[in-house]
C-alpha cells in the first residue's frame, strides 16, 4: 500500500546548520496496517510524514502509494490518496466556514471540484450520519462556524474529515498532543473506531509510548533520522514500555533520552 525506499533528506546542506533529517529510510506498509511511530524530538518522524504527504520532497529515494510512484507529485495531487490530521487542532479545518461546508470540502477530495453545490441535500444526510458517529452532538450544529468549536471538537471533526472518504493512507501527526488528557483520550478512541471501520492503512506519530503500544498492529522507533527498531504484529500485543526502553539501550548503547513527553502517562 505504501512503500518508502531509500529516502534521504538533509536540511541546510553545506552550511554549519546542516542536519541529516532522514538517513536511508525503508518502510513498507501492507493494506490495513496501523503503524505507530515513536522517537525523541528531531528523530525525523515529522519529516518522514511530510515526505509521504508531499509537503517535502526527498533528496533521493522513492515514495510509492498503491503501486504508483508519487515522489515528484505535488502535495495537493497526492492528497487525493492521503488523509491527514495535524497536531494543531486549528490546522485541519477552516475556522470561518460552517461544519457542513468543511465536510463538503473534505468530501470533494477524490473528485474534481466543479460548479456543483458544495452542500446538497443528499450529502447533508451523509454528513449527518457521519457526524453522529462522533457522538459529540455536532450533527445538531451544522451551521455553526468551526472557529466556535473547542479544540477537541475541532480535532474530532478533522479526524472525521480525514477519514470519511476512505483514503489509501491516513497520516496522524501527534494529533492528540495539543489536547488535554480527557479530550486526547476521546480522540484516541475515535481514531481507533474510525480506522477499524474503514480498515484504513495508518501511520501515527506519537510522543506517548503507552498510546503507541495500545494502538495499531505494528510499531517503529526512530532516532537520528533512522528507523532503529521495528516491532511486527506478532510481538506487538505483548510489548511494554520497559521492553522499549531496554531495546533502545541495547541498540544505541546509551540510556534513552528520558524526556518527559516520551514516557507519556
Amino acid at each position, binding site marked *: 500500500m505504501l512503500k518508502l525506499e531509500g529516502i534521504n533528506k538533509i536540511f541546510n546542506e553545506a552550511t554549519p546548520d546542516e542536519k541529516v533529517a532522514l538517513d536511508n529510510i525503508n518502510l513498507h506498509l501492507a493494506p490495513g496496517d496501523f503503524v505507530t511511530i515513536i522517537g525523541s524530538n528531531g528523530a525525523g518522524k515529522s519529516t518522514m510524514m511530510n515526505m509521504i504527504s508531499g509537503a517535502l520532497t526527498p533528496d533521493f529515494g522513492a515514495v510509492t502509494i498503491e503501486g504508483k510512484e508519487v515522489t515528484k507529485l505535488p*502535495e495537493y495531487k497526492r492528497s487525493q490518496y492521503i488523509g491527514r490530521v495535524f497536531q494543531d487542532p486549528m490546522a485541519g479545518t477552516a475556522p*470561518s*466556514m460552517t461544519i457542513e461546508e468543511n465536510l*463538503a*470540502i473534505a468530501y470533494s477530495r477524490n473528485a474534481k*471540484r*466543479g460548479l456543483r453545490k458544495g452542500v446538497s441535500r443528499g450529502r447533508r444526510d451523509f454528513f449527518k450520519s457521519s457526524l453522529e458517529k462522533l457522538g459529540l452532538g455536532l450533527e445538531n450544529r451544522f451551521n455553526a462556524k468551526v472557529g466556535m468549536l473547542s479544540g477537541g471538537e475541532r480535532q474530532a471533526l478533522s479526524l472525521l474529515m480525514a477519514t470519511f472518504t476512505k483514503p489509501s493512507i491516513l497520516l496522524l501527526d501527534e494529533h492528540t498532543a495539543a489536547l488535554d488528557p480527557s479530550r486526547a483520550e476521546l480522540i484516541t478512541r475515535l481514531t481507533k473506531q474510525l480506522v477499524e471501520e474503514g480498515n484504513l492503512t495508518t501511520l501515527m506519530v506519537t510522543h506517548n509510548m503507552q498510546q503507541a503500544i495500545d494502538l495499531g498492529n505494528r510499531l517503529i522507533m526512530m532516532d537520528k533520522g533512522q528507523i532503529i527498531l521495528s516491532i511486527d504484529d506478532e510481538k506487538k500485543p505483548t510489548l511494554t514500555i520497559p521492553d522499549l526502553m531496554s531495546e533502545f539501550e541495547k541498540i544505541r548503547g546509551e540510556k534513552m533520552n528520558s524526556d518527559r513527553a516520551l514516557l507519556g502517562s
Partner: protein
Amino acid sequence: MFTALFGSVEQGIIYAIMALGVYLTFRVLDFPDLTVDGSFVTGAATAAMMIALGYNPILATLMAIVAGFIAGCMTGLLHTKGKINPLLSGILMMIALYSINLRIMGLSAENAIVKPNIPLMNADTIFSQFQSFWSSLGIDAALTSFVKDSLGLQTAPGTWGTIFVVLIITLIIKFIADWFLKTEVGLAIRATGDNKRMIRSFSANTDGLIVLGLGLSNALVAFSGALIAQYSKFADANMGIGMIVIGLASVIIGEAIFGTKTIFRTTLAVVAGAIIYRIIYAIALRIDWLDTSDMKLITAIIVVLALVIPQLVDKRREKKRKEKRRMERLDQQREFMQGGDHLA
C-alpha cells in the same frame, strides 16, 4: 439635491460591482489586491475603445470583463509562480496596466499609438441602447409625475431607466457571487483564504485557486469600469486612482452597518456599502470649503475611521465590563465585611 443624490445612487450601484470584486480578494481570499486601480481602467479603456470603433456596447463590455480577468490572473501568477509578495504583485500589475491602458485606448485612434482618454459623447452605450427600449414603456412619465405631484419635489431625474438597469445587473452579479461561493470550487476558494494548509491536504491546488479568484475579482472590477465609462461617457487613464481604497471603504462600511452573518448578507452589505459611500461623497462635495480633489483624502479618512472605530468601541466595552465586575466584587467584599461585623 434629489437629482444629485439620485445620480450618486446610480453610480454607487455600478461601483458596487467593483466592491464585490474587492470583497472577493480582500475578504474571501485574504489577498489585498492593488491591481484594482489598474484593472478598473482596463475595463473602462477596453469598452470605450471598442465602442469608439463602433462595436456593439454589449460585446465591448464583455471584452472588458475578459481583459480584467486576464489582468487579475497575471497578478495571481506573479504571486503564486513568481513567489512575489501579494501587495507587491498587485502594485507591479497596477503600474504595468497604466501603460497597457494607454495603449488600449490608443487602439481607437488612427494617428496615435497611445491615448490618455476617450470621450463617448454621442456613442451608442449599453445605457443609450436600453433607454430606447425603456422610453417605449412609458414608465418614466408615470414615475416623474409621481415624485412631482405626490412627493412635492421640484425636479425629477431625466430617466429612471439607468437605475433600473444597473440595479438588475448588480443584483444578478450579487446572486451569482452568492451561488458561486457555495459551489465546490467556491468553497475551496474560501478555504484557501481561511486555511491554506488545510485545503491543500484535501487535494485542492491553492495556487490555481488564488489565480482564479484574482481573475474573477478583477473581471468584476473591469466590468464596473466598463459601465462607469459608458455611464459618464468618458474613459480616462487616471479614473482608477484610489479605486482600491473606495472598494475597501465600501466593503468596510457595508459590513459594519449590515453585518456578515451569512454570505448572502455580506454581499448585500457590500453593495449597500458602495451606495452609501457614493451618497457620503455627494454630500461632502456640497460642503462649500471642500474641493473635488479633497475626496481622496476624505476616502482615506473614512477607511481609517472604519478600521479604527470598531477597535476603540471594543476596547471601551471591555473596559466598562471590567469596571462593572470590579464594582460587583467591591460590593461583595463590603457585604462580606458587614456580615463579619455582624457576627462579631
